[in-house]
């Protein structure tokens, strides 16, 4: 189990006077009160068959039962049964369900954060149909409220909800974005109004993969779509989502929503970033409190629509055999499965699918914020081994993905394992194979 020392203290706001024990008690009773009918039904439906373990790469890699997905919400099931289930008074009266204590919950930090990518593969295997990943996400909210979000995620989320970016940068991202435009000789539309599409980028693209940023601008320019980045909402990631800080997630999403409304965008285009898509496409409106007045599309989804409409034409790409890593949040959990394949087909790619692909793909190992948690690295590497094997078994020379976090995770694995493949961006490949003249400005 992880060392959680310092985390409770680190997460306490200066005005927080409660003891860790009281804070945990408050978070757990909050969880039980706010659980909602759907999650309660999911918790009640579990028959303890343990089959979900067989979908989880943390369990498959280690055979350690503690990594069974449904076990990761065990204290929360205990709190729900004790506080708000049908026979809660009976459970309390007979002492059948004990109050969850701070030390018990502290041990679960490792299970809910370090060893869960929130990838949702476990939700596909349950014979009762339980969406286990949804329960885990809700449990992360309570962990955050209990002061038990891992330090790395907590600090990035805290920084982002105030400044709009998860970490301080040497230069403002706005300046870095313009510098990328200059370096790659592509116009970066910034702070325009009355546009069709509002753009944003993963900060890891700005810092590590500037080619992906330039490619996004180049493709949009080629299509002649009126679009803009907004200085006040450049960053797509949402560390509030990872850390379980619902209020912070709301604030981080709101920054993008407000700017999309301000520039009258009809589409908020989510770049190659899986969790950003999940946060904006499937959660933002709930947190915002009303339906969003624009569409949220993932970039490959948008491009596949353009392809279908005949506005995007792509030439054959000389890549040799390729394989594709489906980002869990946009593919399995978000429904963007066909779009990347339509783009690859349009470029006549020789796609060699992995053994587990599409909605059943294994996570890269870095999702859910795991890549950011330093102490989780040894377990993450262990988990990744089978994924790397699957990629190698395809015999593909080129390895594509459509998620900046997946890319960072595989880059890290390349260094760690001295692995011979470099993940590439599907968007960059599209930008490199555009056919026809760019639309007039």
């Amino acid at each position: 189990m992880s060392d959680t020392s310092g985390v409770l203290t680190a997460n306490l706001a200066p005005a927080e006077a409660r003891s860790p024990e009281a804070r945990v008690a408050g978070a757990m009773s909050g969880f039980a009160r706010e659980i909602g009918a759907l999650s309660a039904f999911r918790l009640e439906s579990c028959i303890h068959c343990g089959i979900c373990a067989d979908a989880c790469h943390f369990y498959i890699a280690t055979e350690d039962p503690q990594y069974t997905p449904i076990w990761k919400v065990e204290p929360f099931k205990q709190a729900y049964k004790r506080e708000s289930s049908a026979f809660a008074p009976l459970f309390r009266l007979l002492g059948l369900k004990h109050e969850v204590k701070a030390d018990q919950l502290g041990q679960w930090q490792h299970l809910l954060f370090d060893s869960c990518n929130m990838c949702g593969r476990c939700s596909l295997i349950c014979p009762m149909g339980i969406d286990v990943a949804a329960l885990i996400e809700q449990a992360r909210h309570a962990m955050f409220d209990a002061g038990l979000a891992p330090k790395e995620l907590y600090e990035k989320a805290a920084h982002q909800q105030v400044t709009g970016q998860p970490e301080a940068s040497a230069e403002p991202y706005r300046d870095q974005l313009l510098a990328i435009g200059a370096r790659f000789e592509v116009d970066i539309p910034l702070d325009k109004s009355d546009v069709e599409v509002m753009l944003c980028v993963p900060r890891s693209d700005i810092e590590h993969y500037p080619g992906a940023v330039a490619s996004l601008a180049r493709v949009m320019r080629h299509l002649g779509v009126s679009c803009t980045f907004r200085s006040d909402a450049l960053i797509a990631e949402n560390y509030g989502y990872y850390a379980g800080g619902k209020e912070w997630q709301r604030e981080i999403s709101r920054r993008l929503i407000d700017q999309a409304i301000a520039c009258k965008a009809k589409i908020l285009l989510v770049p190659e970033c899986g969790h950003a898509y999940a946060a904006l496409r499937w959660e933002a409106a709930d947190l915002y409190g009303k339906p969003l007045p624009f569409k949220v599309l993932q970039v490959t989804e948008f491009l596949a629509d353009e392809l279908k409409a005949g506005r995007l034409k792509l030439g054959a790409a000389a890549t040799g055999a390729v394989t594709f890593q489906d980002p869990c949040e946009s593919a399995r959990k978000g429904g963007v499965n066909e779009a990347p394949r339509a783009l690859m087909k349009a470029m006549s790619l020789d796609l060699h699918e992995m053994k587990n692909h599409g909605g059943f793909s294994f996570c890269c190992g870095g999702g859910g914020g795991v890549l950011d948690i330093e102490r989780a690295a040894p377990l993450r590497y262990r988990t990744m081994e089978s994924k790397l094997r699957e990629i190698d078994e395809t015999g593909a020379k080129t390895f594509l993905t459509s998620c900046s976090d997946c890319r960072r995770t595989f880059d890290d694995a390349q260094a760690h394992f001295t692995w011979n493949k470099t993940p590439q961006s599907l968007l960059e490949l599209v930008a490199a194979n555009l056919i026809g003249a760019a639309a007039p400005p």
Partner: protein
Amino acid sequence: MNLLDFARGPALKVAMAIFCLGVTWRILAFALLRIRRDMNRPRASVLKFLGGGLLTVGSRSWPHREFIGRTGAGEALGYSYHIGLFALVLLFTPHILFLGSLFGVTWPGVPSSLITVISVLTLTLFLAVLFRRVTNPVMRMLSNFDDYFSWFITMLVMVTGLAATAHFGAPYETLLAVHILSVDMLLVWFPFGKLMHAFYIFPSRALNGALLARKGATS
């Protein structure tokens, strides 16, 4: 009033009342909790949303190709004893007559020799299920009193039923009374434990499947 009269008279009535009230309350209790409206724009039409739910009811009856190597044997064991249980409850002539007295509908049963074979097979599978629960590290970790007691009480019903049909160890009337009393106990326990999954399984698959279909997600 002898034991048999008690078992199928007042004891059964009380057990049925606890069963009906308990099950109803357990389901109604969800209604007291918050139901959130999903305000995110759906990807799927209403038809696909409903279809996704129905499809998942069927598709989760057997593991996806990607999982079958790891879970096929366990699921086959699980479904086998459930099939055995249903066969015993629904195809044994005395059970059909009892259910007929409750619901007014009867159907043909199967020969009692076949029922004995099914009983023995189901009992064997049931023992295998327990063996698996205590030897499989994941299942052992997840298991609590509810799992073991639900197993025990279902097993008790089967064993007493088999003893009654075989006229084994005591007069038939006594064996039948013990069997019916074990059924009464099962009915009383039913709403409090995991046996409730009989009511949850299809709505749970349908609901989760429909919500995943709403997003176009894999189910």
